[in-house]
């Protein structure tokens, strides 16, 4: 064995046992990490990247997990077979971990101070007032303002970014040598993501932490990594220095991933609409939406102005992107336009008729013409209905579209249109992958022969390579069928080659509304610029030559 690394994983093979047999999550995975460096494990969902990390922490439950082979050594000591006490001595103290969704990973019923102090008490390092003082210190260190006050608050009283800071604080409390970060910024807005990544870099510089970062996001990977390993279906398909991997990928899978990224070049413009925009089919004028926030029995009644004076048009065959971070009101716009929520004031003319004035009968016709595709296709489909039932359901409601005997043929036609096979019609939603489910959702929307489809974060839950496929499909369908889209997303780059016009929203109001090229070439509003710059930059550009060879 060569000079030992801080942490080394060798030939790790993990199976998960289920009724259907064993599923091999990782297959002969080997990697190592040293002090002060960041190793990024890059892969899409199901690639086995999280399993590798869980194995290091001893978090894989056996059964259903089964570590078939492999060794994990920390400072030359074998840690994959250590007992509960040895494991406790390692976890939190020497190796720490943070997770994707900090809200569910923090215990909801204890104040965060309690949870922070527990790190010290669990390892017998401090208790009571001493642990509390240390907890306050840590909160300050990870950038929570007024730590003395906030220490007694509960996880749900913090924002997403703050919760991740608290998680990070908990992880670095005992100054561990290795920090495993499992998709730490995936659930966060881009601007918050940048802050968290900066925090991680700062802590790494201060403590000489070794970071193992697991992510599916190439930009995040590039901004953090010294070295990268790319995983696909449980195997490592590529590894090397970050810059070399990103600039000159060897494996075809890595190339697919990197090509899925929206690049700065003009070639991607092909996904824009090919037809010249006609006259507006939807005219939104001074749309306002208030939500009443009642915080309790004797509390004051307050209002949230979720959408402020919004006006825009959508023409036939056109794609309008609405971009904003969480809380910007972008989804409220969709819900109000479809009359899923009542509007507070304003007009929305669909072919000259105000949506908000429509009676039940008109609304039924309107809903046929305007369809919606949701973020999570799994929860928006009835799990006990077959794909045939799901796609044909609109025809049960709008009886004039199609006679029953022709349903089967039409469903097959629609499935073909979205790239699925005829035999898929008799399966159930859980038998499909995320990308396929989103295709089904699109087929269902098309069943009504709509003119406008509102996509609310329709690709956000999908892997990058799948995102691009779904967007390609939407672009194709638009050009073939003359559809118009309102495409709502938090991800500015993704609409770059797809939307004709972009509306940037912040706190319920439009901050910028322009043609896509203009927005990207010459953003007018500081917030738009901030959104663009929030996309992480590769590490070799921001801090060249700091990497230990």
């Amino acid at each position, binding site marked *: 064995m060569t000079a030992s690394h801080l942490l080394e994983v060798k030939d790790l093979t993990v199976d998960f046992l289920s009724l259907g047999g064993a599923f091999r999550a990782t297959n002969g995975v080997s990697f190592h990490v040293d002090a002060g460096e960041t190793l990024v494990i890059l892969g899409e969902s199901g690639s086995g990247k999280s399993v590798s990390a869980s194995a290091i*922490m*001893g*978090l894989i439950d056996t059964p259903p997990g089964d570590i078939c082979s492999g060794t994990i050594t920390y400072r030359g000591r074998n840690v994959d077979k250590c007992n*509960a006490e040895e*494991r*406790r*001595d*390692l*976890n*939190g*103290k020497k190796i*720490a*971990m943070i*997770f994707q*969704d900090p809200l*569910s*990973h*923090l*215990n*909801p*019923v*204890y*104040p965060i101070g309690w949870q922070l102090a*527990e*790190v010290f008490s*669990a*390892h017998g390092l401090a208790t009571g007032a001493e642990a509390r003082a240390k907890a306050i210190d840590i909160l300050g260190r990870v950038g929570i303002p007024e730590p003395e006050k906030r220490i007694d608050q*509960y996880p*749900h*009283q913090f924002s997403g970014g703050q919760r991740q800071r608290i*998680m990070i604080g*908990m*992880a670095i409390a005992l100054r561990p040598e290795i920090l495993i970060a499992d998709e730490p910024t995936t659930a966060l807005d881009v601007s918050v993501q940048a802050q968290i990544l900066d925090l991680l870099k700062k802590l790494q510089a201060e403590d000489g932490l070794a970071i193992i970062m697991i992510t599916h996001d190439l930009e995040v990977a590039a901004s953090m990594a010294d070295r990268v390993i790319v995983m696909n279906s449980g195997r490592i398909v590529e590894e090397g220095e970050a810059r070399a991997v990103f600039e000159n990928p060897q494996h075809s899978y890595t190339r697919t991933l990197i090509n899925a990224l929206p690049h700065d070049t003009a070639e991607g413009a092909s996904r824009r609409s090919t037809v010249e925009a006609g006259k507006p089919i939807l005219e939104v004028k001074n749309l306002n939406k208030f939500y009443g926030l009642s*915080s*309790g*029995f*004797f*509390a004051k009644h307050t209002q949230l102005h979720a959408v402020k004076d919004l006006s825009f048009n959508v023409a036939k065959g056109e794609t309008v992107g609405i971009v904003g971070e969480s809380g910007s009101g972008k989804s409220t716009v969709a819900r109000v336009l479809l009359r899923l929520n009542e509007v507070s004031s304003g007009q929305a003319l669909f072919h000259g008729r105000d949506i908000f004035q429509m009676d039940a009968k008109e609304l039924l016709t309107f809903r046929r013409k305007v369809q919606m595709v949701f973020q999570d296709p799994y929860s928006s489909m009835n799990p006990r209905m077959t794909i045939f039932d799901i796609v044909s359901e609109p025809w049960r409601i709008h009886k004039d579209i199609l006679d029953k005997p022709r349903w089967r043929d039409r469903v097959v036609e629609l499935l073909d249109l979205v790239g699925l096979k005829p035999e898929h019609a008799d399966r159930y939603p859980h038998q499909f992958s995320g990308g396929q489910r989103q295709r089904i959702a699109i087929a269902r929307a098309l069943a009504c022969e709509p003119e406008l489809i509102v996509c609310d974060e329709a690709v956000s839950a999908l892997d990058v390579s799948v995102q691009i496929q779904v967007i390609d499909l939407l672009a194709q369908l638009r050009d073939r069928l003359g559809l118009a889209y309102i495409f709502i997303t938090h991800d500015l780059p993704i609409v770059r080659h797809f939307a004709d016009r972009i509306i940037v929203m912040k706190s319920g109001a439009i901050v910028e509304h322009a043609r896509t090229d203009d927005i990207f070439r010459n953003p007018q509003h500081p917030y738009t610029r901030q959104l663009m710059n929030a996309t992480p930059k590769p590490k070799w550009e921001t801090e060249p030559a700091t990497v230990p060879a």
Partner: protein
Amino acid sequence: MFGFILRRSAQSLIAVIGLLVLVFFLSRLTGDPAYLYLPLDSSEAQRQAFSEAHGFNDPLYVQFGRYLLGVANLDFGTALSRNRPAMEVALEAFPQTLKLAAIAMTLALTLAIVVGSLAAAKPDSLFDRLASTASLAGASAPDFWVAIVAILVFSVGLGLLPTSGTGTPLHWIMPIFVLTLRPFGLLVQVVRGTMISALASPYVKTARAKGVQRSRIIFRHALRNSLLPVITVAGDLAASLVNGAVVVESIFGWPGIGKLMIDAIIRRDFALIQATVLITAVAIFVLNILIDLLYARLDPRIRFQAK
């Protein structure tokens, strides 16, 4: 919090009044008390005089008005069967039931939390299987059957315990055992189920990554979160113990409110029926308010909404 209690009390008051109306009229459908209280050979005139004296001849709404007026003055009528104020009789019996219910519920909850948590900590272990089978049996066995079999075995067969009545500590054993069994069985199942999902939750993963002791993960992290659904079920079961001790109290001759209620119904003692129903209803409403407060105490997310 004070506002919350006030609001809940007002809601409960409406429900109690509705219940009293129902009980008042339904109990009068059971027949004429005169036939029960007078000797079999009494004449029609005597029965008339009896009804007249107790106001049973007045139209129902007049009787009801009189009753409400009485209640407003804290006069709940006279228990015919005992010739004493009905409320006095009911209040004497109620603590007997309350003691029994409190002991049974505390036992059931404590045992269920321990057994259920340990079972959930090692699913499919021998202990888990034993606990699951035993709790299922406990939850399914009808209490009257368990009570009678217990009397047969421990009193008639072995002669260890008294068959019924009160007086010595030995008298408590069988009623408590029978009353504990079903809540214990049900609660073990609830605790086990919620604990298994709590132990698989992300925050438990975090605790493991922090290096927290296994016992602390089970009893501090997971259990505290599991308590919420457990409290809901336990509250329901406690309510059924307060009024549902009828069967057990009757079998063991326990002088509690359940037995008193049955006696009152059999003897068409209207005032006493109303008094016993009123007491149990109020007790159950108080219990529910306490559970709501406990819930808010246990879950900070509810606590902050309520403020």
